[in-house]
């Protein structure tokens, strides 16, 4: 096979950046493709050249085989790296790349097909002597719980847990619908659901095993914390796992990087084949860190037809990765969108950040909401976990809500620290109650300092100076009401001494301890970061024009998305909780329900409408108490 000179990455964000980095190191040219909403992401700029894929939805852009191939031709690429997701496990695409005379950086298309159909894959593995998990054809109560999975799926989409037989039929139908919409293939299958299981996977390149990873911490069946090696595996289990993975790869004469995923039941010390991902995984960096290997480089070597090492080097240390998502863990992990105003992750030694976004980028709801992966490698698991938790806690992330606090809570959870990981752990880790502490005070004072600096008359006076003091100044930040006094001697607040205040930084002393708060202001958004935490506050304006006030009973769009269906007509009577309309964002449907019984006074949108977060969709007027 010819040497690769210019790689097009048929993907976006962090994984595109990741592939470009190795290409640059090896002297290979790079081509980015981007949808319209992604035009400003860093990966586009990092590539030698970029080709626009007009449109916004994945179907119009990164999933459009013809458009991607046309881009490769136009940019003179001679190889295509699919990244993960999108077309990475689409055998048709792999073949089309090859038929276009380009090098496909991935396994043989037939391997993708063999492993892509999860039912066939299971049969293949059973034949190769790899233990598999199977549900009876006619499940009964004793087989519960069950897991419905999309055959063509990945990343948790189309997966549903069934705990009552009565729900099975409905969940299968729902999973089919979701799978069809996400992957264009509605085939689903059912398997036993191991409650306290662990998700353990083995990295292979060709048939060479590069150790194992644990990816048990998942939400909505999507991994959020991954580590290598998998902690606490008995030696004989680890050896058997590696051997099973090797046999799986051998069974399909596998080429390039792939991952064999197993469900491990620590109680019985048994493991079962789940699926094989015939691509690079999101969590590949943890393997790279402990093995000192560049898996993308090995993919390129394999794609060029050169031999890959027959044995992996010795693993050393422990690596942990977290996926930082723009989502709200408190609201069922709803994806968040908006302008990422700041993304600063402390780059301590041992920390590796794979970010797809940078400050100023807009996070859209068209694609996966992962902002960055943060990876820490250290001598021991405990060291890596401690550093990672602290780095996350000290990161400055403004503009979108993220799962950062949840990640920190996991990394500091006693069970996690003890290595007691399982797929059931994440929901058991309590979300930390938001504790803004003195952050609202710091925010109020920084805002006052901003006002002071922006003053056009009577500049340079002490803040809120009064010769006849009568009341404190009041700054309202959502639920936080901050009262402060100004005057000759500077600021005074309850419960803390104000050591210093500037528009960007406020130092407060409480109980003899000084803490410096960094405050960033963008419009009404006020972000406060300090070594112990962070708070995203919103300044409540002093005055609201009554003409602009939102009528009570207004239903606001919880996130940007598309209106799928309007369930009621204007004037209709609704009961509390009745669905008013259905919104789709990130391929998830969200029902917007009536907050109280009443009459639908307004419907402002129709099916198909694109709505912004906070937009008033409908107004339900509350029913007056009626006398019978």
């Amino acid at each position, binding site marked *: 096979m010819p040497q690769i000179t210019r790689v097009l990455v048929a993907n976006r964000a962090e994984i595109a950046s990741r592939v470009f980095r190795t290409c640059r190191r090896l002297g290979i040219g790079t081509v980015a493709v981007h949808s319209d909403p992604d035009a400003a992401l860093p990966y586009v700029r990092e590539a030698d050249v970029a080709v626009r894929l007009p449109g916004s939805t994945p179907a119009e852009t990164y999933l459009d085989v013809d458009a991607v191939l046309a881009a490769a031709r136009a940019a003179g690429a001679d190889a295509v790296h699919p990244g993960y997701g999108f077309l990475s496990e689409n055998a048709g695409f792999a073949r089309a790349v090859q038929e276009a005379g380009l090098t496909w950086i991935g396994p043989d298309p037939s391997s993708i097909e063999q492993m892509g159909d999860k039912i066939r894959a299971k049969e293949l593995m059973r034949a190769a002597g790899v233990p598999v998990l199977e549900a009876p054809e006619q499940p009964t109560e004793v087989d519960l719980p069950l897991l419905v999975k999309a055959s063509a799926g990945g990343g948790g989409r189309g997966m549903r847990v069934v705990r009552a037989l009565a729900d099975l039929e409905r969940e299968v139908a729902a999973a089919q619908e979701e799978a069809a919409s996400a992957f264009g293939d509605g085939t689903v299958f059912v398997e036993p659901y191991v409650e306290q299981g662990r998700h353990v996977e083995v990295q292979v390149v060709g048939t060479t095993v590069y150790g194992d990873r644990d990816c048990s911490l998942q939400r909505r069946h999507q991994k959020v914390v991954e580590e290598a090696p998998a902690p606490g595996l008995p030696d004989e289990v680890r050896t058997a796992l590696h051997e099973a993975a090797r046999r799986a790869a051998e069974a399909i004469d596998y080429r390039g990087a792939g991952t064999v995923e197993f469900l491990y039941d620590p109680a019985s010390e048994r493991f079962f084949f789940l699926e094989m991902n015939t691509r690079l995984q999101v969590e590949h960096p943890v393997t790279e860190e402990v093995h000192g290997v560049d898996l993308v480089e090995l993919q390129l070597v394999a794609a060029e037809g050169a031999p890959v090492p027959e044995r992996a080097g010795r693993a050393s240390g422990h690596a942990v990765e977290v996926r930082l998502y723009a989502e709200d863990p408190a609201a069922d992990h709803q994806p968040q969108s908006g302008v990422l105003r700041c993304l600063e992750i402390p780059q301590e030694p041992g920390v590796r950040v794979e970010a797809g976004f940078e400050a100023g980028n807009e996070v859209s709801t068209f694609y996966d909401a992962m902002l960055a992966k943060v990876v820490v490698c250290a001598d021991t698991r405990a060291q890596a976990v401690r550093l990672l938790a602290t780095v996350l806690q000290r990161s400055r992330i403004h503009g979108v809500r993220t799962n950062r606090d949840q990640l920190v809570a996991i990394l500091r959870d006693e069970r996690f620290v003890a290595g007691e990981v399982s797929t059931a752990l994440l929901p058991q880790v309590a979300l930390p109650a938001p504790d803004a502490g003195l952050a609202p005070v710091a925010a109020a004072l920084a805002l006052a300092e901003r006002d002071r600096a922006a*003053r056009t008359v009577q500049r340079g*006076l002490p803040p809120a100076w009064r010769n006849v*003091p*009568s009341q404190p100044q009041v*700054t309202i930040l959502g639920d936080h009401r901050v009262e402060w006094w100004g005057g000759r001697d500077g600021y005074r607040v309850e419960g803390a001494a104000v050591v210093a205040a500037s528009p960007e930084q406020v130092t407060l002393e409480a109980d003899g301890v000084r803490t410096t708060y960094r405050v960033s202001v963008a419009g009404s958004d006020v972000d406060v970061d300090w070594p112990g935490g962070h708070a995203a506050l919103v300044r409540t304006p002093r005055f609201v024009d009554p003409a602009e006030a939102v009528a009570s009973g207004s239903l606001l769009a919880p996130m940007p998305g598309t209106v799928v269906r309007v369930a009621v007509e204007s004037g209709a009577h609704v009961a509390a909780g009745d669905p008013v309309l259905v919104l789709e964002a990130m391929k998830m449907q969200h029902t917007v329900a009536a907050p109280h019984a009443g009459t639908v006074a307004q419907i402002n949108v129709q099916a198909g409408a694109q709505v912004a977060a906070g937009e008033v969709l409908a107004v339900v007027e509350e029913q007056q108490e009626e006398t019978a």
Partner: protein
Amino acid sequence: MSGGAGNREALLEKITALDAEHAKAVAGGGEKSVARHHGRGKLLPRERIELLVDEGSAFLELSPLAGWGSDFAVGASVVTGIGVVEGVECLITANDPTVKGGASNPWTVKKIFRAAQIAEENGLPTISLVESGGADLPTQKEIFIPGGKLFRDLTRASARKQPTIAIVFGNSTAGGAYVPGMSDHTVMVKEQAKVFLGGPPLVKMATGEETDDESLGGAEMHARTSGLADHLAEDEHDAIRIGRRIVARLNWRKATVAPTSWAEPDADPEELLDLVPADLKEPFDPREVIARLCDGVSPTNGAVFDEFKPLYGTSLVTGWARLHGRQIGILANAQGVLFSEEAQKATQFIQLANQVDVPLLFLHNTTGYMVGAQYEQGGIIKHGAMMINAVSNSRVPHLSVVMGASYGAGNYGMNGRAFDPRFLFTWPSAKSAVMGPAQLAGVLEIVARQSAESKGQTFDAEGFAGIKQVVEQQVEEQSLPHFLSGMLYDDGVIDPRDTRTVLAICLSVIENRPVEGTDRFGVFRM
């Protein structure tokens, strides 16, 4: 500095007493009245002002002790002051409806007149936050006839293109109805504002018509029918929001571009408390005060104080400094007494300030012009008259701060109240009268003795001692800042440590009109 700790203690005690008097003004009509007002969902005058002014900006309250020592509440049922609204310095007045329904008494009227004078002299827009039950009827004789000036001032202000805004929160009836009536802009709060010439009982008596408050003067009626209200506000917050929007659209431009950088004083203003002797007989060096009020040395300010004629007339210090970047000329008493040399030096200095259009600051600590045959013969009256002539006819803005004594014609020469300084503030350490209480009592005794002796009577020294004591006591009381401030003889008593801030506000406010000196003075008697 001498006697620091004792001085500080004495002054701190006076500041504490001042705070207590201010607290009385803030308390308005008292807890019950305030609770009832709040219970109606209404805001207090200072709460309205706090919402009206730009967040975190300064508010310089004027005449807070008005009515002190009278039968009326401290503060005179109205709050007046200068605040920044949408970046515009405005003269704000707010009735205090918790004090007898916000009714105007003679002190209220004096206080509002003074506020109007400040607005006029400095060219400020005025905002009236109206909620007043009208005149205090028992004292109507002192209010009704002179009170017309209030309405005259409003429309004259408008004629000078000095915007007038009335925000009506409640009662504004009878004469009070002319406040919105004479203002350029009016805002009325729904279901609260009540603006009519005659209420239902009066109408019934006058014409027999049966009607109600809302038809006669409700906000809705004025906004939709009479057209007296330009804006109908949903509630008090909304009214203040609208008021701010009105100011934002005044297209207000100041006469001067304000300085943007300066150095804080080289010496700590906190030390002002150590400087002023507890006993005013002891003089103190005003240069020490100037170093604590004026800008420190910086790239734009080569020296803190450039003294003029430092070797001549040394009992009065004159010279140039900067305060918040603005140049000022300062006249400050150093030894209490003003001699001919001091008077002539002051006259020349005032003329110089007028030549270069620089505002003047008078720092009072004077016991008056020197008396005695030598000085009379040396022309002390002539020279004092020159100084008073210069002070009276000078056209650059004057600011006065009474730090210590301000007695006799010295009070005039140093730009006392009668000479209309733009602003006059008093320190708690001050005393002002025709002469010191002991001197006055002593003079009375001498006069009485002479009178008795001329009539061939024996002077009853023992008997007079009692009278002398009473007089001395009374003069002492009436020389003190609270009393004089209560009489509206200053614009407020201030903590000396706030003097720099107060002066900075005044100097900024002054710049709403051009600073132009004069070369026209009265005839100088040479």
